């Protein structure tokens, strides 16, 4: 089992040791700095740090999901397009384990970016609004009645479940179609179209709509309580869970069956 860690180390090496990592990190940190800078110059540092953190999360977090989806889409598809899949699969490891190591490493990459994003948000806004600004009102804790950190972690937990789901879809598509473009395009579609319009769909009164995957991808609507528009967090998680199992089974089945002729 210790050997399986080596597979994950390999996948992480291939994930992280590339120039794109720095491009992605640069974009994220850059956006946070620009956003917070503009905000700071507009309201002269009146806002509370936590408010800025949460608002910027709502506006910018989707980029993390996109980056995570890109990474997970390329992890399988690139092995096929470069032909290295042949080198990878002729080792004493079952295809299932190799795929699992890739999946775990995709999730780790997503987690790394979510943490990096949150950390840069906290740091930049702490400097701007706490050290330099004069915002003293802690509005979030007033409104929500929970401590800021707890609220933030709950919010990010719900966000990350959605990211995991998108990463899983992207991973599945790139395994099934061996094309990272298709997987990335789908992830973009989910993030941009679905998350903006599906909320509207949720108001349409057909029973089947409650079982559509996309309605449940944004779980942050439950952050204030356990119910939203007649659905509960538990229900959403159950629907996501069913889709998740379905996607995983399909991904693994196809990867194990496939003749590698790349």
């Amino acid at each position, binding site marked *: 089992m210790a050997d399986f860690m080596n597979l994950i180390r390999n996948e992480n*090496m291939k994930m992280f040791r590339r120039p794109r990592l720095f491009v992605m990190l640069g974009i994220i940190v850059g956006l946070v700095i620009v956003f917070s800078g503009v905000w700071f110059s507009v309201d002269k540092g009146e806002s509370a740090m936590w408010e800025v953190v949460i608002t910027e999360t709502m506006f910018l977090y989707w980029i993390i999901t996109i980056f995570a989806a890109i990474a997970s889409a390329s992890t399988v598809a690139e092995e096929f397009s*470069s032909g290295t899949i042949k080198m990878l699969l002729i080792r004493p490891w079952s295809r299932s384990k190799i795929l699992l190591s890739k999946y775990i490493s995709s999730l780790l990459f997503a987690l790394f970016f979510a943490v990096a994003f949150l950390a840069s948000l906290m740091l930049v806004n702490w400097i701007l609004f706490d050290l330099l600004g004069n915002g003293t009102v802690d509005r979030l804790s007033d409104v929500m009645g929970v401590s800021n950190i707890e609220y933030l972690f709950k919010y990010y937990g719900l966000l990350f479940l959605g990211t995991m789901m998108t990463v899983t879809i992207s991973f599945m598509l790139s395994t099934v179609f061996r094309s990272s473009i298709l997987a990335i395009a789908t992830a973009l579609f989910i993030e941009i179209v679905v998350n903006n319009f599906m909320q509207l769909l949720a108001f349409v009164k057909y029973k089947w709509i409650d079982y559509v995957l996309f309605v449940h991808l944004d779980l942050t609507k439950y952050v204030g309580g356990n119910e939203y528009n007649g659905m509960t967090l538990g229900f959403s998680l159950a629907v996501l869970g069913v889709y998740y199992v379905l996607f995983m089974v399909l991904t693994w089945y196809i990867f194990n069956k496939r003749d590698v002729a790349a």
Partner: protein
Amino acid sequence: MGQPIVRLQDVTKKIGSRTIIDKLTLDVPSGEVFGFLGPNGAGKTTTIRMMVGLMSITSGDILIDGHSISNQFEKAIRHVGAIVENPEMYKYMTGYQNLIHFARMIPGITSHRVREVVSLVGLDARIHDKVRTYSLGMRQRLGVAQAILHNPKLLILDEPTNGLDPAGIRELRDYLRKMAQQEGVAVFVSSHLLSEMELMCDRVAIIQNGRLIDVRTVQSTDKAVIARTLFEVDRPEAALEALAASELTGTIEGAGNIAVEGDKLFAAQVNELLVRSGIKVFGIRAEIKSLEDQFLEMTGGEGIG
């Protein structure tokens, strides 16, 4: 020769209704360099893909060191090192990182072994450069390095001399022969470079359209079966008459030469006969049919079917 390391039993591959490989049966013992010859599209790479588990086998089985590649994949592949088609590597990593990557996937490979293999394939100077800067020959060397990292019992190389310069080809040939003879490795090499195979292999299988046409031992010069012998004589016509008197046939080849078909022993008998008949023999020259001639004869220069 040892016990068979790899055994193909009635291996058949069908894609849709097309039969790509038709009931291929082969044994390769340890310590042998085995050549796999065939024109383009004959099914060489498909066979190799099935041997390393990249493709499923429609019927039949492939055993490596006694383990079935389809049912006991992890055990069977454990002792296989391979390059399938081109030696594709992660271009954004260095050669060394690539080797570490593959070394991690098999227990017991030390960093000492990795360095040993690097100098064995002669890449010391460039191993810490990114693979994207490598020439085809250097990639081929890196490919060989990853294939031999874990001291495999079976080495499968698909067109290994592609992109190597003459010195590199010779080096690889010597190395493969050494691996086979000294370490008992079974080496399975596919190629369409016939003259190369002749120098490298102990036995050669020829396939065409997915079927095994022939397996033969590569003859060293003194054992060649099919040979023509040229005799340079003073009176060719008289020589033919002398042969005809003993119910043998020959042909006149150019000025002052006659040719007879037969092995070495037969040539000696012909010589004796000519000398006894008072014909002056100035020279005897054996013409060995090259593998290439035999190959083209057998496959009939047929197109891709």
